[in-house]
């Protein structure tokens, strides 16, 4: 497999301002130096609690917001997207597409489904009108909608169907990478399974790569080949999905896994649960040392003073924890 995307030390700081002059008094480090890569045909899951920077990171990758620093090289050409001007960025926008969380607010209610799905084709002047119609029908069929649906408006569809429309739109330009930001969290359980299956099926069919952002660990496990766990703007652990869930190496990953209630009463009630105290700290005033130490039950002196780097402890397993060698953490088998 070849690398499709390589992110190096991506940072996004939002200034906090105060007073009449709106002077910058500090920064919220929404994304604080993350590095990862995505192989072709791979799904990388990005998990973390709200406010950990997973959405900000994805928006940077699409250049919807400009990163503060860092680089991300994309495609065979190895172009660093972070340095491109908006004009130079345009051809790359076709190759990276996004699926949003809320299908209600990401579809224009005054356009027909055909217009919504065909808009990327129209804007990029890829096809003539009549060719476009054929393509739209094909796209709708590939996501499980009917050709006649193209004349209807988004309100006439259920949540799951709307998400299918959003996916069809993302597929229109035949992208290489799809960034899906919480694509199933607004959906009901039975519909969620349909959309997950659809995404998996499309990945095979069109040879897509996904960056799949979600807060639901079981959903991420199901769809991802590798998983990155984020906490306060940093990646604390990244490894292949199975290893991560079976033997987590970072105490935060362990706590996250432990917090997910398993749909099996006997197992769930016997589990030894790790309860994290308190909330995620304010990202404008992160703790010293390891950001997780105030909530970590294994924290020692070194954790309070020094920030651990993300380092490789086994092939494909990277973790940012001082104690990763000594800790025996529990996962789910």
């Amino acid at each position, binding site marked *: 497999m070849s690398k499709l995307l390589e992110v190096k030390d991506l940072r996004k700081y939002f200034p906090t301002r105060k007073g009449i002059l709106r002077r910058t008094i500090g920064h919220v480090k929404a994304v604080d130096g993350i590095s990862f890569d995505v192989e072709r045909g791979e799904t990388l899951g990005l998990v973390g*609690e*709200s406010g950990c920077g997973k959405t900000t990171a994805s928006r940077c990758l699409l250049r919807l917001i400009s990163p503060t620093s860092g680089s991300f090289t994309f495609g065979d050409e190895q172009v660093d997207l972070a340095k491109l001007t908006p004009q130079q960025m345009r051809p790359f926008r076709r190759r990276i597409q996004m699926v949003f969380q809320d299908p209600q607010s990401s579809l224009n209610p005054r356009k027909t489904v055909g217009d919504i799905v065909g808009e990327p084709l129209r804007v990029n002047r890829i096809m003539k009108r009549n060719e476009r119609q054929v393509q739209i029908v094909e796209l709708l069929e590939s996501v499980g909608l009917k050709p006649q649906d193209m004349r209807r408006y988004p309100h006439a569809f*259920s949540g*799951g*169907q709307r998400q299918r429309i959003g996916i069809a739109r993302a597929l229109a330009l035949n992208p290489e990478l799809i960034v899906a930001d919480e694509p199933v969290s607004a959906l*009901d*359980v*039975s*519909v*969620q*399974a*349909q959309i*997950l*299956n659809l995404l*998996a099926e499309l990945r095979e069919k069109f040879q897509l790569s996904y960056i799949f952002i979600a*807060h*639901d*660990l*079981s*959903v991420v*496990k*199901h*769809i991802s080949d590798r998983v990155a766990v984020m906490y306060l703007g940093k990646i604390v652990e990244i490894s292949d*999905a*199975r290893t991560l*869930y079976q033997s987590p190496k970072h105490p935060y990953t362990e*706590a*996250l*896994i*432990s*917090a*997910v*209630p*398993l*749909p*099996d*009463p*006997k197992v*769930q*009630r016997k589990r030894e*649960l790790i*309860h*994290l105290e*308190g*909330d*995620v700290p304010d990202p404008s005033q992160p703790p010293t040392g390891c950001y997780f130490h105030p909530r970590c039950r294994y924290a020692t002196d070194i954790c309070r003073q020094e920030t651990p780097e993300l380092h490789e402890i086994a092939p494909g397993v990277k973790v940012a924890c001082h104690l990763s060698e000594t800790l025996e953490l529990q996962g*789910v*088998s």
Partner: protein
Amino acid sequence: MAQPLLEVSNLKTVFHTDGGVVNAVNDVSFSVERGKTVGIVGESGCGKSITGLSLLQLVPNPGRIEAGEILFYRDDVNEPLDITQVSPRSELMRQIRGNEIAIIFQEPMTSLNPVYTVGDQIAEAIMLHQEGERSSLARFGLQTTPKWARERAIEMLARVGIPAPEQRVDEYPHQLSGGMRQRVMIAIALCCAPALLIADEPTTALDVTIQAQVLALMQELQAEIGMAIMLITHDLGVIADMADKVVVMYAGRVVEKGSVEDIFYNPLHPYTRGLLNSIPTLGGSQQKMLPSILGTVPHPLALPPGCSFQPRCAEQMPTCEQMPELNTIDASKNRTDRNERHAVRCWLCEEKIDVETA
């Protein structure tokens, strides 16, 4: 045998809309025992929230409870009270709401008043119910919270695990995080030590680690006060963690109910089985495809004939055009408590029972 606290039988809540009549809650029966947790599961639009609101006579317009009984066994009264017979605006209903039956909602930001401090909001519930006296000044917000109510509010905040309650009591909801807000909601709900807590998707808007904290807190307080919980959720993991009994709803009706073991280890209705299969699991090996339920929930104004699940059901047969009854399963007929029996609304199981008895 656990004592019943609430017995709902054949409850029917109907919305008369311009487009037609929606039977949001249709012939729903279940019971809640003292100190126990009943989980109500279903997808959006299945009527689980309206069931919860019906118990408090809080059904929004144009909804009305049209049939059925909600028998509430109050602490000091021998005769059960039928809540459906009480006027929603009556003084009696007000006494029950918040005091004997409390409710917490999914989104704490929208259920808390943004212009009052959390302390005032907790104190409001305490003053309304605990001392009885309501001064007209307090009603218009002209009277400040008396000291004793404020102290009770601080006590409640400490009890739900909010650090530095003396400071937090004077803060506004926007200053608190989502998990803290939900704790404040729980503090408001529990300040009068209700006999029943209705929790409508209490953790859906929260992160998993915060969800775990809130669920643990609810279990702790339940053991302490001995209240019953009616937990409305779509998350089967939460149900597995919390519930003693489970009611599965689909399109306004109960399709299956039973003990938590019945539902998770011996699910009989195809919908229950479909739901259980369609959730991705944390453990075990990775499956390629999730077994999903086809199609979507039917529109409430255009329900299919017979069993509402029939168009999506993999095991559909001609008899499904008629509505099956909610029948007790043979194997659980011997359970002493009538309310604890495993019951299912499906023709497939009907046949199973027939074969066994014949």
